[in-house]
Structure formats: C-alpha cells, structure tokens
C-alpha cells in the first residue's frame, strides 16, 4: 500500500485515503470475503480499473443496466467503510469531512450539518413519509441507486485510456 501513498499527485486529493483503500477492498476485487488484502498484483489492478471502462455503442439495455450497477457498487463500497452494506450517518459525515478536508478553515459543524442535510434528503427521497419515531438506519444500496437515478453515471465515471502504456509505468 505504501507504493500508493508515495504517488506525489495524490497528495492534493482530499479523498486519497478512500481511493487507495478501494484498490485493496476485497469486495471490489470480486472476492467473496470481506476486508482488505495486503497486496494486489497487476490482474487485481486491472480488475479495479475495469470499473472505469467507458460504455460502448452496441450495448443493450440489460448490459447497460448491469454496467451502471457495477459502477455504482464501486462507489457505494467507497462510501461504506465498515462494510456493513449501509451508509450510516457517521460514515456519510466522514465522507463529507474528507471532501472538505482540503480547506483548513473549515469547522466541523459545517461538515456535519451538510452531511445531516444530505442524509435527510436521501431519507426523504427513499422513504418519503416517516413518523417521528422511526429511525432511518442508513442508505442501502437500493436507496443509493435511487439517488443516482437522475445522473447518468455510466457517462461520467470513466477514464480515457488513450495510451495503455502509461498504466505500466506506475506499477
């Protein structure tokens, strides 16, 4: 993992922890178990990279849907750090805090209130009417899908690999 940390450009990235983590996440590597692996080889690396494949013209609806789900699952795993299948409020707060960590002037409160607001929104989209006693556990994967319905993830989450040799360099 240390190799990843030593990449200089990643220094500025506020969510570098999560990105590096995602590479080692067993769920992303399509292994059955949970947790993290210690090292990855080139094949695993490519497995992760394949999540960022651009869509092709000749895909039909089903393939497109599957593609979309895969990409969203990758994202979901990044949010859900304790691997329990739900994004809880604490995890979400964590995400927002990391996103805003690039800015030293920030107070924790703002990050928290943003996360709270976002969670409220998510809850209202997903569940709608809730009595004051019900508790919303967290964002499950289905809710996550619902939230992303408006945004075409398949068109956005891709990296252009015009030149495949560059990948070999960093390994």
């Amino acid at each position, binding site marked *: 993992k240390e190799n990843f940390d030593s990449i200089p450009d990643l220094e500025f990235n506020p969510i570098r922890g999560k990105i590096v983590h995602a590479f080692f996440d067993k769920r992303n590597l399509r292994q059955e178990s949970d947790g993290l692996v210690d090292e990855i080889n080139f094949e695993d690396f490519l497995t992760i990279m394949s999540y960022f494949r651009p869509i092709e013209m000749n895909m039909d609806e089903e393939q497109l849907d599957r593609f979309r789900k895969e990409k969203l699952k990758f994202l979901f795993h990044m949010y859900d750090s304790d691997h329990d299948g739900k994004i809880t409020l604490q995890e979400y707060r964590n995400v*927002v805090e990391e996103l805003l960590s690039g800015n030293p002037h920030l107070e924790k409160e703002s990050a928290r209130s*943003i996360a709270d607001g976002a969670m409220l929104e998510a*809850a209202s989209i997903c569940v709608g009417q809730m009595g004051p006693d019900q508790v919303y556990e967290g964002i499950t994967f289905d809710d996550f899908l619902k939230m992303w319905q408006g945004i075409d993830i398949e068109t956005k989450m891709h990296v252009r690999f015009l030149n495949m040799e560059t990948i070999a360099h960093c390994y």
Partner: protein
Amino acid sequence: SVSNIVPESCLLIVVGLLVGGLIKGVGEKPPILNSDVFFLFLLPPIILDAGYFLPLRQFTENLGTILIFAVVGTLWNAFFLGGLMYAVCQLGGPGLNHIGLLANLLFGSIISAVDPVAVLAVFEEIHINELLHILVFGESLLNDAVTVVLYHLFEEFATFEQVTIIDIILGFLSFFVVSLGGVFVGVIYGLIAAFTSRFTSHIRVIEPLFVFLYSYMAYLSAELFHLSGIMALIASGVVMRPYVEANISHKSHTTIKYFLKMWSSVSETLIFIFLGVSTVAGHHYWNWTFVISTLLFCLIARVLGVLVLTWFINKFRIVKLTPKDQFIIAYGGLRGAIAFSLCYLLDYKHFGMRDMFLTAIITVIFFTVFVQGMTIRPLVDLLAVKKKQETKRSINEEIHTQFLDHLLTGIEDICGHYGHHHWKDKLNRFNKKYVKKCLIAGERSKEPQLIAFYHKMEMKQAIELVESGGIGKIPSAVSTVSIQNINPKTLPVERILPALSKDKEEEIRKILRNNLQKTRQRLRSYNRHTLVADPYEEAWNQMLLRRQKARQLEQKMNNYLTVPAHKLDSPTMSRARIGSDPLAYEPKADSENLPIITIDPASPQSPESVDLMNEEPKGCGGLPPSPEEDEEGLVMRVKEPSSPGTDDVFTPGTGDSPSNQRMLRCLSDPGPRPEPEEGEPFIPKGQ
C-alpha cells in the same frame, strides 16, 4: 392550442409581417431592421444572457465537439455553399452570370452560420436534453468568430484586384486573432468586473450595473477592433460570474438575473418582429433558381457536414453521438437575424446583387424558422429523444459529483495519465489559491464550493419558508422526515427535556414568523444611502455565528457536571434555571428541531441551535463583524451577551434599541395557547 404547435418565433415573425403589411398599406414606408441597431442594441443582451448563465460544466466537457462543429462545420458550410452557388450562377443564365466567386463565397459565409437567437428561441421550448442543447447552442455562439472573419475577409477581397496566396494565409491567421482576441478582451473585462465587485459592499444598489456595464464594454471594445464581439461577451460573462456571485448581495443577484432575462426577452421579440417587417419593406429580387438552390444546398451542406464531423468526432468521444443526436443537431441548424443584418450591411457598390442575396437569405430564414422550428417538436417526440430532466440540484448530487471528480482525478494520477480531470483539478487549485483571494471579498474567498452551495440552498429554503409564513406550513416538507429519524439519540436517559411535538413546534414557528415579519417590514428610511444590507443575509450570518458559538459553549458545558450558581431564585427564574441546566439538554443540540430564538426563519432541514444557552460573555465581545455589519438601519441584533448564569432570553437585553425590546417581547409571548410544561424552553417572561 396554437402555442403548442407554433413556436414563439414564428408567431412573432407573422406579427411582424402583418405590421409591415399594415404600414405599407397605409402608404408609409415601413422601417427596416437597421444593422447598427441590431448589432449594438438588440444582440448583446441575448448573448450576455446566454453567456452569463451558460452551464459551464457541460460546456467545457463538450468543448472539443462544440469547437469542431463551430469552426470546421461553418467553414465547410460556407465553402461548400459558396462553391456550389458559384456553379449554379455560372450555369444559371444571364441573370446570374455576373456574380463572381467571391460574391458567392461571401454569400455562403453569411448564410452558413447557425444563429444563436433562433436556436435559443426554438430549443428553449422543446426542452431537449442538455447535451444536445449545449452542442447546438454552443456551436451557434462560437461560430461567430468564423463568420466575422470570413465576412470581413471576403468583403475586403472584393475590393482587391487580385487575391494572392499571402492574403489567404493572412486571412487564416486572422481567424485566430479574431477569436482568441475576442476571448482575451472578454476575460480582461470579466476580471476587472470581478475585482470591482469585491469592493461594492457599500453600494449594493448599483452592483448589477457593473455586470452589465463591463460586459457591454467588452462587446464594444471587441467590435471596435473587428474582433469577435460575441466571444468577448461570453468570455466576460463566464469569467466574472463565479466571483461576482460570491461578492454581491442576494438581491443584486436576483436583479441581474431578472434584468438579463427581461432584456433578452425584449430583444428577441423585437428582432423577430423586425424580421417580419423588413421582409415586407425590403427591396426584393426574386430569382427562382438562386433561391431554391440556396435553400437546397443549405440543407444538404448542413446534413453532410454534421454526418462527416460526427463520424470524426466519435472517434474521440466517450459518449458517442447517436444517429438520433446527429439528426437533431443537423435539424437544429437554424438561421436567423444575424445573417439578415450582415447581408444588409453590404454596400451596393461592390455587391449589386445584394437584393437577391437578401431575398434568398430571408427565404432560408423563414424556412428554417417556420418549417424546422415547427416540426422539431413533434420530431423530438417521435424519435423519443431524451428530454431535459427537471431535477432540482440536491445536496446529495453535489456531494456525489465532487466525490466523483476527486475519485477520477485520483485514478488518473495513479495511472500517470494527464487527462481531462487532472487539468481541471489543477485549474481549480490555482483558482482557489491565487485568483479567489484577489477577487472575492473577505471571508467568502476561503469558502469551499460545497459549503457555498449548501449555504445557498439553505438560504433559498429559509426564504421560501418566510415567504409562505402566513400559511403556517413548511412548504418543502413533502416528507415528514426530520433529523430525529436519522440520528436518534442512543442515550435516552439524558433527555430530560421532552421533545416538542410537531404541532407545538409549528405553533411556535408560526408565531415567530408572524411577529418577525412585522418588525422586518418597518424600514426606517428608504434613503438610497441607508438602504440596508439584506436582513436575511445578516440574519443568516448571525445565525451561523451563533450556532457556532452555541456549539462551542455546549461542548464546554458538557464538561461541567455542576449547575452554575444562580443569583436569583424566583419561581420563574428557577424554571429558567432548569431550562438552562446543561444536563437537561441533550449533548447534541443539533439533533433537536427546537425553534430558534434568533431572528432567522427556521429551515426544517438544518439543525437548529438551541440559543437559550448562555453565551460566552467576554470571549466574543459582541459578534465578530460580518461584512454587512457596517451598514446602519434596521439591524436585528437580538441579544447582547450578559453575565453567565442568566439566561439571555429571559432578561431584558442590554442593547436597548426599541426594535430589540420589541423583538424580545414578541419572542417571549408564546401566543394564545401556551402550556408551559416542565422543562419547556419557551417560558414567558416573568412580568
């Protein structure tokens, strides 16, 4: 109904025709669209409106495609059309033989440009998906540079005896000068405008003026040097917008928006009406061959151009353009008033056949606007082209988009691949580090985008809430989800305070709102110079500060387990003491939807602070000055901090301005149905 079938632009042209006919019928000479008036007064508002509100994200994502369509596409159209028309003229018999190649090329260049006004007018109504909209619209905006260059080039060449290769090369170079020069001029003016807006905190009233003024100056300066005025206008709007919006007050922002929309609306209407009138008024020279072949070749050129270019572009695009998209792009190539005005500017000396050109151009314009404009909507439905999704920007979306951006940048960095995201990220960082510091006033320069967005949203909600204050219902609460649902307290034993039931909350809120509105509406004076800062904004800032301090205090309080000794011990005060007892409160004040005592309307989704708590007396010494606090006038300063151990709400404020006292009286009066239960924080003032 008629308006569903016929787009507005068509109706306007028809109105123009009728008016022109009327004037002619009376015997007067109807006015023709004066090119000066058009280019100086009618066109800029529309372009500025488009540029200022340009959806920058989609624009930059598709910039390559747009540029190729604009530049290569227009060039292709111009030369193809010009060449073919020349051929037609040569074969066309005695009436057309004398028209030279240059004249035809000029004609081609005038008529080949897709017109932003027409495109806007038609595409606005069909609500097509954003990608196509930005492609066609972006193309129509950017091809102005090409049109300007070609137009002036051929106009110049017509006066030359002979055209040499050097001239052609110079012409080619002048294209870069014109377009980049226009952008450069726009950027300079945009930066100046942004910089000016940094200092306008004392003269809020004329803030919108700067936006308009600087943009118009950019346009004029560019046009002065025969650079592309449209590109200058767009560049200045795009550059100045993020900084100006961070600096100016909310009201100025609304003003700018509505003025721009108003002016562009008026201009558009006038342009189309004038087109109609000019048709009736102008001298026409109808030549069947010329006109029909122009029309035909225009369409063919457009379709061919789009097909070939898309094939080329799709090699580099990740999200390919489907044939359906291509059809819409080709079909959306509307011509409009710019072509007409440009032709009108030609002088008779060199271009004797101007009238014929004019007729042909008008025919093409009519055809594209009427036929294509009217049929595009049913075609869009028929082909099931994706429409625009009317989703409100949600916080979630913003968070996710930012997250995705960082993720993709990270992945690119890992690959060592300097792609799209890498450069965007670099630009953002540069922006944040240097530019924002210069151009944005004070505190706001350090605000990350997510926060700014969140604030904007909350403000919007808060204003919504107040505006519907009399109804007593939370307008945006489609769901009854509240903070409690998400973050239930795990230690109920600490809750001595029962949560207010929703009805009581509502009552309290309604009372607050009603009372607050009354005080707010009584402005002291309406003198321009004392026109105050937006009370919402100030209130907002104050509320935020209060919240922060309340939290800080709360954290401190949580460390103390003893109740601070109170001086007074009357029954009301003892109740107040319980009310201010730190143990009685939940450690996390923000998870409770308690009503705010401060002046700001309660936003249902943001955690509200419990401002019943003591405020730190000396530590803050008054609120840190927010930018708007310099202004006099009705300032809602609710409480002054007093000594610890007393609860601010229940003691008369030390700041004794009448509004302050009035405020406290309002707040402390719970209304007709109070049931002060044990521990209810809202206790009437001991009178």
